[in-house]
């Protein structure tokens, strides 16, 4: 099996699986962190340790993160929670049309409630129009910027430093929400340095498990909770905390951060090799040159996305057409179309996405399989 679909989800690492097993079989750790007795305290202490560990690896304070169920919940909580709490912060939100559906659908929802959502145009490399951003910010009504650090379909990297500079100069009070689901563990992330106000992360994209994510909310940024109840997690997300899930995230993050520099280099080699070999074979590379090497969006001439996906599948190779959340809707990727990529090329595009566990041998085998697919299945 060659798994090149790591932007959809990743295999749980052995260390994460072990941490979950250990957690579940440890008689001293099953208490409710909110309980007053000894079992509760033991769990609560461990929970705080884990949270501090995550905060350290993200470059923030442990009081600045809450656990969520996934990246999508983090995004919803950040956008809806901030706007609900800060109704006088302005009525404009600036974003792009290449965001993940979690952001786009949430923005569509608030637009119906009277907010003015401005979608900046993106160029061929997927980067938003910064002049337009400055112009829009200068109007003085912008409550929030919502951007994605790394685009899930193309690997385009957002020029976040430039955006922060413009924002701080023109409209310092505007808050910034950054979707870091695809960048975590791949780019260096230090939240204090980045300066964003809120950021969402997901466990299963970094060899953790599905069911846990983290939302960063900077000190002094106030939001309304999305889930109300017993007041856990500073009242920002009620519900009994799961020590097991929190620890799974911490272990996955620690591994990802430690492996990051090597993984980046290693995956860059795989990416460069595939770019070259696929280009030789007439494929069109949609990912920008300066994109994150972990994602390679490529159009195979003569094959509709889905046909290529299934053909590769028959050789045990797993890739994705457009982002898995929308791949059943049967339209070419809206991200690629928004970037100005020709409809025909978009309809033939698949996404290869890598992790530190992929090897050069797999990349070579992949190319051999692509050749076989062309021999066997090319129509005309």
């Amino acid at each position, binding site marked *: 099996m060659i798994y090149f679909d790591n932007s959809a989800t990743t295999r749980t690492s052995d260390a994460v699986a072990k941490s979950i097993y250990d957690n579940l079989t440890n008689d001293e750790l099953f208490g409710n962190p909110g309980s007053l007795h000894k079992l509760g305290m033991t769990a609560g202490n461990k929970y705080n340790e884990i949270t501090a560990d995550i905060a350290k690896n993200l470059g923030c304070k442990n009081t600045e993160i809450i656990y969520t169920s996934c990246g999508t919940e983090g995004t919803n909580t950040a956008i809806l929670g901030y706007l609900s709490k800060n109704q006088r912060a302005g009525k404009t939100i600036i974003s792009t049309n290449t965001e993940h559906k979690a952001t786009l659908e949430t923005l569509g929802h608030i637009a119906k409630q009277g907010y003015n959502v401005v979608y900046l145009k993106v160029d061929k490399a997927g980067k938003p129009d910064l002049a337009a951003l400055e112009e829009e910010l200068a109007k003085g009504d912008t409550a929030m910027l919502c951007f994605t650090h790394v685009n899930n379909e193309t690997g385009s990297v957002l020029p976040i430093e430039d955006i922060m500079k413009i924002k701080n100069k023109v409209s310092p009070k505007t808050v910034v929400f950054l979707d870091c689901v695809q960048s975590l563990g791949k780019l260096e992330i230090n939240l204090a340095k980045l300066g964003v106000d809120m950021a969402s992360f997901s466990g299963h994209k970094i060899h953790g498990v599905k069911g846990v994510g983290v939302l960063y909310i900077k000190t002094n940024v106030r939001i309304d909770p999305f889930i109300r109840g017993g007041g856990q997690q500073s009242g920002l997300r009620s519900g009994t905390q799961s020590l097991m899930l929190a620890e799974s995230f911490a272990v996955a993050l620690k591994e990802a951060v430690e492996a990051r520099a090597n993984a980046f280099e290693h995956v860059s080699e795989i990416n460069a090799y595939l770019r070259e070999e696929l280009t030789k074979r007439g494929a069109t590379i949609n990912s920008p040159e300066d994109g994150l090497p972990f994602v390679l969006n490529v159009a195979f001439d003569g094959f509709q996305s*889905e*046909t*290529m*996906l*299934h*053909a590769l*599948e*028959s050789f045990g190779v797993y890739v994705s057409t457009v982002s898995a959340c929308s791949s*059943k*809707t*049967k339209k070419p990727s809206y991200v690629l179309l928004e970037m100005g990529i020709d409809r025909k090329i978009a309809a033939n595009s698949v996404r290869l996405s890598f992790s530190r566990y992929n090897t050069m041998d797999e990349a070579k085998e992949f190319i051999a399989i692509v050749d076989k697919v062309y021999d*066997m*299945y090319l*129509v*005309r």
Partner: protein
Amino acid sequence: MASNVILARMGEVTLKGLNRGKFENQLKVNLRYRLRNFGKLSITQSQSRIWIEAKSEDNPAFAGEEAAQEILTAVTQVFGIVSASLALKFEGDFDVIVKEAIAYVDKLLQEHPEYKTFKVESKRGNKQFPLSSPEICTEVGGNILDNFPQLSVDVHNPDFILNVEIRDYNYLYSGKVMGHRGLPVGTAGKGMLLLSGGIDSPVAGYMMASRGMQIDAVYFHSFPYTSEQAKQKVVDLAKIVSRFSGKMNLYVVNFTKIQLDMVKNSPEDMITITMRRVMLQIAEELAKKSGCKCLITGESLGQVASQTLEAINITNEVATLPVLRPLIGIDKQETCDISRRIGAFETSILPYEDCCTVFVAKHPKTHPSHKDIENAESKLDIKAMVEMGLNEGLEIIEI
């Protein structure tokens, strides 16, 4: 103690002459098969009606109203049944009947507070019963009027009718669910349905089954051009048809190599027709092997390029068995309506590619001639293609 029973009414079957018994027996066999997952049931016939009830009281299928409704729906999906009602069965004299009738109406009015008028209809199978049918109506009706002052009698256009039947036991019911009519499946031989993933072919299968035909189906799978999801969709559609048509074998033909060979060796604008001719030949061989006496397609005249009269002529020529096309003169809207009624529509419109759409030319020939097809097939080894379809990777799924 009162229990739930289902009263099902037969339709066209009862018009049969000397062979009526054969049709009735098949209908009962089909009911038994359709209701096989509902525990032990007794299915008995008296005249043009069939009574279905639990064999013992501990069969949970009839215990609750909801479960009984599920059986009722299943019964109405068996061809040969015109309508069915869920009835209450109990023993006792006339006082008990009145008491049960009042309780029954009370419950009915809770569900339908809008009901204002009613009528009582009665049948008396047990001629020993002291009251005549009209007397039963008057007495039961009078008691209902006394107990529910908001109701009045309307014999012409009532909001609800309360039926009282007195036989070996007493029965109460109101309203009926219409069935799918038709003739019992198994009384009109077996046909091979060419099932794609679209709207038409499941409806075509349903329509032939409604005339008593047992159905087997064949699907042409072109992985990777059509996905596993597309195949699953066809399996799901076959299951929907089989709710009405009973046991079915679905033949999945591995069509990829055949299609690729065609694309390489015959003109683009004739691909669809050439493909359909090969499909028909493979389907016919499978039909003969499995005892089917005809082929069934969902073609409707003029709907697409391959369904013009010329194209149908050219396609039809390769078949020796009759090709039945129940939708040939039916408007698409009507087909969609039937598709919705049998619960297939939502599955049919799922977006996965089906076998007909991937290799379609932009401008297919709409009026092909013999010369066109001779030319199109000149470089193809059709016989080998049919053999390949029958032998290489054929999968048989029992639905």
